[in-house]
């Protein structure tokens, strides 16, 4: 059963995860878990249970060890999300520079609430805590490659959304 699960990954993804193990001492392969989950999420957009089971298989750990980690860290999506995840910082320094109005603007623009995904599956809107870019507030990042967009205004966000909508 374990073998069938691991085959859900492409050979190149499996190899990339295998290669991560080299960074940690023998017997400590579990250390590669966070970087491995990032690789899997970059490929599939989110972490399904079978994909987490495959990671467990490759790293030689129990599936529960993967689930408990995946659900602890906020970057990992354990449910499907849109192609682009807009993560808007709403911690104090960003709020001092208009993050709350910006969030409302995006909600209206995309007709979704925080935590929801647009009907076309393109955008998910999330709030996140401090992204360590407070001098460039307000800030949002876009998964899956985690580009930061800084000094945002409603106009800049409109342009960004238009750009991503065209790319699809």
């Amino acid at each position, binding site marked *: 059963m374990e073998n069938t699960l691991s085959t859900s990954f492409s050979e190149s993804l499996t190899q990339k995860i295998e290669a991560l193990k080299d960074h940690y001492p023998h017997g400590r392969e579990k250390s590669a878990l966070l970087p491995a989950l990032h690789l899997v999420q970059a490929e599939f957009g989110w972490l399904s249970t079978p994909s987490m089971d495959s990671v467990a298989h490759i790293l030689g750990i129990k599936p529960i060890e993967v689930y408990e980690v995946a659900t602890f860290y906020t970057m990992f999506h354990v449910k499907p999300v849109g192609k682009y995840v807009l993560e808007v910082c709403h911690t104090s320094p960003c709020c001092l520079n208009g993050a709350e109005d910006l969030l409302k603007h995006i909600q209206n623009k995309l007709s979704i609430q925080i935590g929801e995904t647009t009907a076309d599956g393109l955008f998910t809107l999330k709030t996140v*805590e401090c992204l360590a870019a407070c001098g460039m507030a307000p800030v949002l990042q876009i998964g899956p490659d*985690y580009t930061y967009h800084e000094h945002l205004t409603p106009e800049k966000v409109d342009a960004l959304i238009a750009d991503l909508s065209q790319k699809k």
Partner: protein
Amino acid sequence: MSIQILLEHAKVPGIQTLEVYRKQGGYASLDKALKMGPADIVEEVKKSGLRGRGGAGFPTGMKWSFLAKPEGVPRYLVCNADESEPGTFKDRHLMTTIPHLLIEGMIVSSFALGAHDSYIYVRGEMMPQIRILQNAIEECYAAGLLGKNILNSGYDLNLHVHPGGGAYICGEETALLESLEGKRGNPRIKPPFPAVSGLYNCPTVVNNVESIAVTPWIINNGGEAYSKIGIGKSTGTKLISASGHINNPGIYEIEMGLPVEEFIYSDQYCGGIKNGKRLKAVVAGGSSVPILPAHLILKTVNGEPRLMSYESLSDGGFATGTMLGSGGFIVYDEDSCIVRNTWNFTRFYHHESCGQCSPCREGTGWMEKVLHRLEYGHGKMNDIDLLVDVSKKIEGNTICPLGDAAAWPVASAIRHFRDEFEWHVKEPKQALIRNYGLSQDQLVTA
């Protein structure tokens, strides 16, 4: 501009590449360090008076000298690049603009500590910075600055970059080590300290990005030269992340001892308050440190000018002072709502609590709820004392300092801005449509 130790070459075009970095004198400290030997390097760092730049301010040289050295057991150096303290964005800046400075620091520090595998634990959100560091590390392997027999010294070092997953708590050193081992970021009970039992139960030093990036300068110029910069026990320079209602937000490398007033109002630094408004309050060292009203951040209670240093910022204790912390300097203008800001910070800590200790897990949630109802016009007068009570029950009662970090902003906001909290209870409808502004006390001193 005062002396620049970290950012001197940050604006040189192409400084991210090894070639340009070396032309600017980069990696000179490595040659010197390999000849000096570990014990002398530790001695120079001790002499420098460098204190941990992550927030705690513990002397770096002393931390290094505590590292246990049992025979046959590997030792590790781990760089804490999990920058997440609200208001702090200096490490991200340093890694983006001058990545080789951190790597050079990692190599000399690893050599000093006898580590052969070192890790830079970078916040997961900083994927672009992770790629920058990985490229820089590859350049170093190719040039013989990393790997086996570095510069024919016989010293071997592998340097690894490890991404986090989005958790403020992993900035706490033992949570970071748990995370590096592929687990949830639950802080460990100390002792044992990482210096005795850290990564994989081996002796480990965990240092902030900025602390490590300073070491090449100390080796090149000597610990004594470093100790002469700054003021008193706050030696050297400090990267300050300036944000909020100021004209020039950004990263500034200041010499310790710069007057706070100059930092806020000089065009060289923050350039004053945006839109010509008046200053209301400052959080000087990241969201965890006590917030101070304008008059107390500019001058100590004894009327002396407040300086950017560990000692001056903490002058007066928590009654009238604060902390330098991580140097996350957030400025609030006269229209800022302290209740809303406190609620914002508390929501952050509730979100980021790992959930291991009940006082923090439950207490941060209660404080968030009470602050929310105060901000949204449903508060009662005894809610204010309730908040103080809950914050006291969290403080000092948790495994790691996140509990304290959550308690202090609440306690200090009420200590210094109680009238504004009371106004939210007395005038709930007004509080929904306008800000309280400056208090009567502040208007007198403003």
